[in-house]
């Protein structure tokens, strides 16, 4: 293997079959082996260059019928940004009532998407 080249072993998760892929990242090209279909090739490429995940967790709610509310990123974010966004969410506390898909953090860490609630919470007086 020459300098600037790297082989990654990646399990394809584009479908449940889970083919083992070998992805070679050259300086300007990506080569995917082991895929059984075209979707796997595309998956291997993104997964090697910029793996993305939907982040879900809970944030605290004050004055609500339940103490926490589930939240999610609207779309997948770069995996590397996950710890930072989680840390930011740990400092958040929402005030009840909370509505479904209310924005919790707008474009955190320049991730390109918002964190929104995934449920509503009623207020208790």
């Amino acid at each position, binding site marked *: 293997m020459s300098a600037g080249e790297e082989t990654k072993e990646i*399990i394809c*998760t584009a479908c*449940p*079959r*889970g083919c083992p892929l070998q992805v070679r990242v050259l300086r300007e090209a990506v080569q995917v082996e082991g895929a*059984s279909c075209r979707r796997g090739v595309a998956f291997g490429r993104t997964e090697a260059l910029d793996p993305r*995940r*939907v982040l*879900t*967790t*809970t944030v*605290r709610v004050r004055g609500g019928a*339940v*103490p*926490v509310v*589930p939240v*999610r990123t609207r779309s997948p974010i770069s*995996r590397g940004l*996950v710890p930072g966004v*989680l840390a930011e969410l740990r400092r958040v506390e929402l005030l009840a009532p909370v509505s*479904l898909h209310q924005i919790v953090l707008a474009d955190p860490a320049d991730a390109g998407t918002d964190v929104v609630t*995934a*449920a*509503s919470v009623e207020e208790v007086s």
Partner: protein
Amino acid sequence: MTPIQCDVAVIGGGPAGLAAAVAATEAGADTLLLERHVELGGVLPQCIHPGFGLKLFGEELTGPEYSQRWVSQAAGIRRLTDTMVVSVSPGFTVWATGPASGLLEVRSGSLVLAMGCRERTRGAIAIAGTRPAGVMTAGTAQRLVNVHGHMPGKRFVILGSGDIGMIMARRLTWEGAEVVGVYELLPHLAGLRRNYVQCLQDNDIPLHLGHTVTEIHGDRRLTGVTVCGVDQAMCPMPATAQLVPADTLLLSVGLIPENELTRALGAEMDAVTGGPVVDDRMQTTVPGLFAAGNVVQVHDLADDVSLAGAVAGREAAAYARDGTAGAAWARVTPGSGVRSVVPQRLRLPADPATEITLRVRRPVEQRCHLLLTVRGATVARRRLDYARPGEMVSLSLGAQAAQALREGGDLAVEVVEA
């Protein structure tokens, strides 16, 4: 006390029960939904991870969002929450109780059972050692963290590589806890590969296949567990024993359909699925008694649960209206390589559009065929690139099989390597 009257009573307000109630109402039945929790949705509100709804809504929803869609569709339907069904008798009479309503009697023309599953506990798998606090099922931990906002420990060991266990491994790590490892008795992963990648691999959590927990340590609170490798016969090998310090042990060792009520009504049970024997309309062997969702068999996807619930609800409404249960059935039996099949019976004349779902006995990592046979002759086949016990697979009955069944005989389902 005057009994409450309805056409269709649905027991359980998870995805199966919600879809059944919606479908029964759409079919014109006066429907009553009974749920023992305050909230509808079954286990969905605690499943905050994404992966729900791809099949039904074409987008990736979290459990609470998926639940919300169904709860709003069911908005106008009569329901009793915080009400637990304690007994049922043929005919049907349902006895339920709750803090607000006291003891209630419900009379219904037909009944849909949608009680879901409970998790296997330590008792069901028998681990030696003390009985300290800090041993719980993965689902209990899921509820504590995601609904009650309470972290049950700091350093976790997870026994079993089921999906709930792997999902909790990520969740706990993201909440700042340490997950020492996931230990799986079998030589292969129990849950989905996607969960292995996104929950364990992404977070550097080790998976130990062919390992089990042999002993629990600790006085009041768990202090650690002994983990051990197992041989090919699944027996622990003492030479490999190792003490792993931890304050919490999560069990992710399988689900058991919740069928006390089903048995009390005398429905025939399937020893392998743990659920009642059902036909292609989700009717049990008791006329007018329908069942759907995890009470019938453990499903991989909530979407499939909703689809089965809708069939049960629609058919329960038809039964309450015209009382036709069917006159003759063919059996569906698991043949070579197949562990379980649902439905276990087909109402005759068989509907060619029926989907036969099954689980295979062992992983087949090569091209194989699912075969349907009647009296030894192959009447339908489907090619698969692989088949694994953890993923339910299905094939349609088809016209040829439906025709063959007209001439008598049972339907057998097999898996053969190509």
